[in-house]
């Protein structure tokens, strides 16, 4: 048997430790210290004298679960419903669209065209939601946006898009698909390219039509990728895309019933009331539930297909 002196301290480990040090310090300060900071959720967090982080944290009064009282308000139900409903529907839509488009791209005979489509579809992923919000504004702006202008020229009453809730579920959905479908389909396309081509030849020899090949070779071939992306998105189902919900509807108050999600609620609560305790409470709930979600989805996946699970 080979005996390895595992616990012996060595210079090698020391030098490697110095390498991880900058990252480790960052993680401690910016990720782990805030985890201690979640006690803010149970405190009436106020600036104390002297106004330093530790002093504020320790001397602020404990208030138990008072900061969680917002849970009883009807706005809470709305924002949780919005978060889950939008994310749930979008996970399904993005999956179906992205897989369909990726399969189509992989089957194109004209490789140049396939490359061109991919380049165009991937483009929105590289833009920020601030930029995207201007794209939306170009179509919906009440004074000169394209749609209200067309309505005016037809003698109709222009829709006040940033005041009426009706169209926002659709607008948000289109915005989200516009930004994310191309990205996912590029990932699926990469997975499809990785499938062993002899499988297709074997299927063809057995007389499988091209449609059958897609169904029996391509789709099973990208199943691990589908599962991984699904776990990641289901695990994040309580985290809404802040940029989308904040910038695209211009954070417009009248739209909150259909645009307010947990993330914008946390930010707006802080920005409007400076009630750190309450925002922290909402954020803490979100983190805990999100964490449970990831662990559960991962557990389910491990039961079904251990190879595909994340951890």
């Amino acid at each position, binding site marked *: 048997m080979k005996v390895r002196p595992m616990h012996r301290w060595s210079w090698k480990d020391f030098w490697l430790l110095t*390498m991880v040090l900058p990252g480790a310090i960052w993680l401690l300060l910016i990720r782990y210290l805030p985890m201690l900071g979640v006690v*803010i959720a149970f405190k009436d967090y106020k600036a104390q004298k002297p106004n330093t982080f530790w002093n504020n944290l320790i001397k602020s009064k404990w208030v138990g679960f008072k900061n969680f009282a917002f849970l009883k308000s009807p706005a809470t139900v709305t924002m949780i419903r919005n978060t889950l409903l939008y994310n749930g529907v979008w996970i399904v839509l993005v999956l179906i669209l992205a897989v369909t*488009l990726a399969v189509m791209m992989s089957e194109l005979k004209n490789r140049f065209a396939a490359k061109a489509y991919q*380049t165009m579809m991937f483009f929105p992923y590289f833009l920020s939601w601030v930029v995207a919000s201007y794209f939306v504004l170009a179509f919906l702006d009440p004074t*000169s*946006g*394209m749609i209200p202008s067309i309505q005016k020229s037809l003698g109709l009453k222009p829709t006040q898009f940033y005041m009426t809730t009706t169209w926002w579920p659709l607008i948000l959905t289109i915005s989200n698909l516009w930004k994310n479908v191309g990205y996912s389909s590029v*990932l699926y396309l990469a997975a499809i390219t990785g499938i062993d081509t002899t499988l297709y030849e074997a299927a063809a020899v057995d007389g499988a039509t091209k449609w059958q090949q897609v169904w029996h070779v391509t789709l099973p071939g990208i199943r691990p990728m589908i599962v991984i992306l699904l776990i990641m998105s289901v695990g994040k189902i309580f985290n809404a895309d*802040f940029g989308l919900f904040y910038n695209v509807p211009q954070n417009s108050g009248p739209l909150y019933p259909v645009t307010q999600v947990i993330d914008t609620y946390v930010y707006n609560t802080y920005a409007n009331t400076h009630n750190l305790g309450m925002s922290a409470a909402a954020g803490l709930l979100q983190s805990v539930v999100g964490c449970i979600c990831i662990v559960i989805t991962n557990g389910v996946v491990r039961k079904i297909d251990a190879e595909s699970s994340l951890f």
Partner: protein
Amino acid sequence: MNKPQRNQVALNTFGPGAQALFHTVLGLFALMCIVPFLFVIIISFTSEDSIRQIGYSFMPLSWSTQAYGYVFRLGDALWRSYFNSFLITVIGTVLSVAICVLYSYPLYRKDFKYRGFFNFMSFFTMIFGGGLVPTFVVCKTLLGLSDNYAALIVPLLFSPFNVIVMRTFFQTTVPRELIEASTIDGAGEYRTLLQIVLPVVKPGIATIALLNALAFWNEWFLSLLYITKNMDVIPLQYLLMRMQRNADFLAKNSAMLGADAAQAARNLPSQSLKMALVVFIVVPIACAYPFFQRYVVAGLTVGSVKG
């Protein structure tokens, strides 16, 4: 030998009907993805007269470069934030790439004693976090990240996802014998990393650098959180975000303030001006995009295949 192969190829592609359908669907979707940007470019070159008469349109009545003239006359505020965007992107990218490479390399070394610990330390933050408010309070009151460049760089310096991407690049491209050989030759750990390993993982570094550069260039959330007074440090993205609100303010108030202010507001080509600014932000990405696309695809694929 040639004939059966051709036969197989024919069996293995969709017929012309299906191909045409695919081209239509893909072409339409691809077009939808870039049309908003083309529209914004058109608007930025539309004259204010045309906007006033028929609104934003793909076929304006008349063209004008007036908006760009105003953009250049915006002067300090604009150039300052453009400069800030570049500064933040360059400094942020260099630092974050260095930190990422230094953190992921020991995680690739199977003989690193604390490998498991630091692996978990990074991974755990992907599934649980303190949330927005505690992070904000720590950064602002404890670390003094407020109204300065550091506030726009430091919170983004490290990404567990990028660590996974980089570690996978090490695992797939650097043979372990290379490191053993280098150690036997008496090279220290840093020398092995810098002179032996780094040249091999250049594509990986390019990928990480691009992902980071993109994140910094598109950053506006940190400005929203941490910049309250010192507007000299804001990047272009945030300037654009603020401009939207200020212009709205102007438009809303002009009606109440009477004819003079309304006149003043109307003389400002605020509509096409904003769109011209959007073009300014997107152009650097659009120009570089075709070249870096494949690196980003490589990185994202690697990262999501094994998280």
